[in-house]
């Protein structure tokens, strides 16, 4: 029955063309906030490898801090709840939506409002940061493709803000 229900996104459909980049909504994804004092225990519980370095992102899992990971998985991939283990696994799939910024001008568009030096951010890196006043999770998938994860209620503001970086 759930499949027949309308699933709403705060983002408009379609793409927006910027100077040298396009803006589009990422598909629905599975999102998990993963916490553990011992990453090995967490890796064993979920049966996946975890990146070693903070800021690294592999297999859809980004290491955001010493004890914090964030999984961005295909929508159908579910993780176990970790009940009873020395970990915290929280399904936050609906908390955020993804915006894909792609093209040679993608980094420049994001730097309009993000204080990070994206010249120094390698593909395969992910970090929590801000776009102006809004917290985002920024994943550099390739040299020219970024995914921005943003909490649902801030998404329409962020979309409009990104869509206006050249025109504004």
């Amino acid at each position, binding site marked *: 029955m759930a499949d027949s*229900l309308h699933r709403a996104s705060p983002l408009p459909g379609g793409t927006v063309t910027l100077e040298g980049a396009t803006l589009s909504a990422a598909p629905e994804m599975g999102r998990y906030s993963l*916490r553990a004092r011992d990453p090995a225990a967490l890796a064993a519980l979920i049966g996946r490898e975890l990146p070693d370095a903070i800021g690294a992102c592999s297999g859809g899992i980004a290491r955001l801090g010493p004890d914090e990971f964030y999984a961005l998985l295909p929508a159908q991939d579910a993780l176990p709840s970790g009940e*009873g283990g020395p970990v915290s*696994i929280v399904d*936050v799939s609906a*908390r955020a939506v993804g915006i894909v910024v792609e093209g040679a001008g993608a980094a420049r568009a994001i730097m*309009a409002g993000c204080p990070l030096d994206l010249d*120094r951010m390698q593909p395969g890196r992910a970090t929590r940061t801000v776009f102006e006043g809004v917290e985002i999770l920024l994943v550099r998938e390739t040299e020219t493709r970024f995914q921005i994860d943003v909490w649902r*209620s801030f998404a329409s503001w962020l979309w409009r803000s990104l869509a206006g970086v050249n025109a*504004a």
Partner: protein
Amino acid sequence: MSGYRMEGAGRPDRSQPVRFSFDGESYQGYAGDTLASALLAQGVTLFGRSFKYHRPRGVLGAGVEEPNALVSVIRGPGRFTPNVRATSVEIYEGLEAVSQNRWPSLKTDVGSITDRLGMFFPAGFYNKTFMWPRSFWEKVYEPAIRRVAGLGDAPTEIDPDRYAATYAHCDLLIVGAGPAGIDAALEATGTRKRVILIDEQNELGGGALSDPALNPWLEASVRDLRAAPNVQILTRCTAFGFYHDNFVGAVERLTEHRADIGDGPREKLWRIRAGEVVLAQGAIERPLVFEGNDTPGVMLASAARAWLLRYGVAVGRKVVLMASHDSGWRDVFAMAKAGMSVAAIVDVRGTVDQALLDSAAQLGITVHLGSSVIGVSGRHAVSGIEVAANDGGNRRKIACDALLMAGGWTPTIHLWSHSKGTIAWRDDLGAYVPDKPNENVRCVGACAGKWDFGSGVVVPALPTPRDPTRIKAFVDFQNDVTAKDIGLAVREGFRSIEHVKRYTTNGMATDQGKTSNLNGLQLASTALGRAVTEVGLTTFRPPYTPQTFGALAGRAKDALFQPTRKTAIDGWAEENGAVYEPVAQWRRARYFPRGSEDMHAAVNRECLAVREGVGIFDASTLGKIEVVGPDAAEFLNRMYTNPWKQLQPGRCRYGLLLKEDGFITDDGVAGRITDDRFHVTTTTGGAARVLNMMEDYLQTEWPDLDVWLTSTTEQWSVIALQGPRARDVIAPLVDDIDLSAEAFPHMAVRLGHICGVPTRLFRVSFTGELGFEINVPAQYGRAIWERVFEAGRPHGITPYGTETMHVLRAEKGYIIVGQDTDGTVTPMDAGIDWAIGKKKPDFVGKRSLSRPDIVAPGRKHLVGLLTEDPDVVLDEGAQIVADPSQAVPMTMLGHVTSSYWSASLGRSIAMALVAGGHERMGETLHIPMPGTTHRAVVTGTIFFDPEGSRLNG
């Protein structure tokens, strides 16, 4: 010479004439002219009226230091920019500029009466004269003074322009593209460094633009820089502030100089993080202080040089130089060689370099050494000067139409000063220069005090045989501060330059004293008889030059000003006519009027619908925190006042959160999902604050606990279904949860599905009725809301908003933290000490609850108030007194915190914080409100269903 334009000189393109207007009169200049250069070329000398005395003023400088020639630029509706410097306004076809601070016209200004009465307007005049009566200041004095003494008019229309903004990173940021800045940039070409070179002018070159001999070098250098792939050049871009860790703010002007502004942004804010900063901002020439130094036509020698060599404009047909520094001699030599007539050089020094005297002789220029200008004739333009030897003798008059001042140079250390670099005094320069850096920054060129302009002497004011207390020798041209004002400040006891500055307003105008600070300092130092370094130097603060609010705001205007957070259900509310109210960053439906209902009628209807049938409410904005880990219960036990360890999975508890001081800071219901997982809710406004507070304790006090916090506010849409029919509505939609009162009691949580969507279904109530809060993943929020609403139609389901929610909870005496509490209310004060786990060894705030002032009698308690007249709804915030006939100021016992009309009770209800309130039950108190004083009886806070039987239905 055509007008004052010199053939063959200057950079403006003579093949591109440009027409513009000033004060309604049409003029012609050329592409590359500024408003000032184009008007000077037409023989215009009068540009504005001064701030305080309304004295006629011309141009003093040729760049951003200009204090006098402030104009307003008009370019259509909403596009009115006051107080821009004519020396920085590039002309374009159709430019419309007007002068300021004059009435009825620039030439005939009534306000100039203040000039003749100048002796009655000394420093501090306004503060001394208009102090009493106090109430007059805001309504009478200040508006009147502002009208007379002012700058341009403030814009009154909404700014239609858009503004861009970006961050940028570089290894080397160079501020200023004069010869020193260009050299620094050239050094970095061919390296791997990312270089940004910014300059406030329309083209690179700085001082080199006024030196034709440097043209070939400049052209080659600019070509090399533009070809360098690692160098980004930004012209018309002003670095206005230097902040921590080499963070520099700059504004690039994109359309100000264009006839057609197009539809792009007007300006762009650059927020630059630089590895190293090189400041090459140059130096500004100092004026000399003597009577009449503000007459139109008296200007800096370096400016006259720029007018001639950069813009091809002679500032007069016969000029005189008044110098205390060699540089002015060289400037007038260049003018003489270009064909201008130099009537005389006057130098306050008794001797100067013989080479200068030889050159003057060769050019046929008369020289008066050991002499000073003691007066200037002409009101709207210089017609002549009077000169005397420094001992007062040998007075003579010289006819001229421009007087050039060469008083030495002041390094532009504004950004260096922002960066908190130290400065050192150089007696030989009579100026402060950069000393020790505080960031990775260095100064080069004239900015560092390194120049080849020759030498000079420092004179606070030129010698004069006249009574110095009766003349106007200006120090700060923009704020109309004279040498005698500074003398007065010292006589009245001011010793520090910071105080002298504030008393006289010297250096406090929009130019931040670029031409006046050092002269003011020298005058104060001389008057005090103390070394300059003991008198100090005032602090420079951003912005270096005035910037528009639009540029600083960037994209943050209109819809992008602030994110307006909306729930997944917000669209349904909008389609169904909701009236919204802002709550924290969210917008929430306040009520849903039908037809012509006002808020009162809509809320009454919504309240009765919930009490008698069923209402549906979007509670998605409630803060939610998932607390997970083996120590989850232990953690909550330490944070909240309540006991948590015995709470069974599937059950909920009201949680009360205090700060360390024992005062209530938040509350909410938490459900235990499993042994090691809690679903905690917070107030809407407290969501982020509570998470931060919990993280703070977890990381700093109890890092040993194995528990983690995850914000899940946005994961869940929350649909509150409240009222006796609530169960009937969802029963057909939920098939895997037993909804019966026995199996699913009040304050319980169940996991299951609604319409096939996974849900955390809470049986909770903030209304006092049977109620559920349906949590579903946010993308399903609206669809489930619509299904529930459809299912509720046969039961008369009514959507309600925050206003009804407030009334319903007040009828039950449920508090809203932040409305019924104000950060000074304890659980005992609020009458909810039942929520304190009496056997708990500790929780945040516990120790404070036994503080003497917390246990002392007479504290303000939360109580109910029932007005004697049931139709009177008290004002929230109204003060409460025991005896309304006591003398003013009365003893106030407290204030009304919540007050509503209760449709269910058919009367008004209120809650209030009242001193000793719990001991005043049944007492009548008085609430003075506009027009009348109301009487009300103190009661408990539960007005409706005190037994709570409806909750358990």
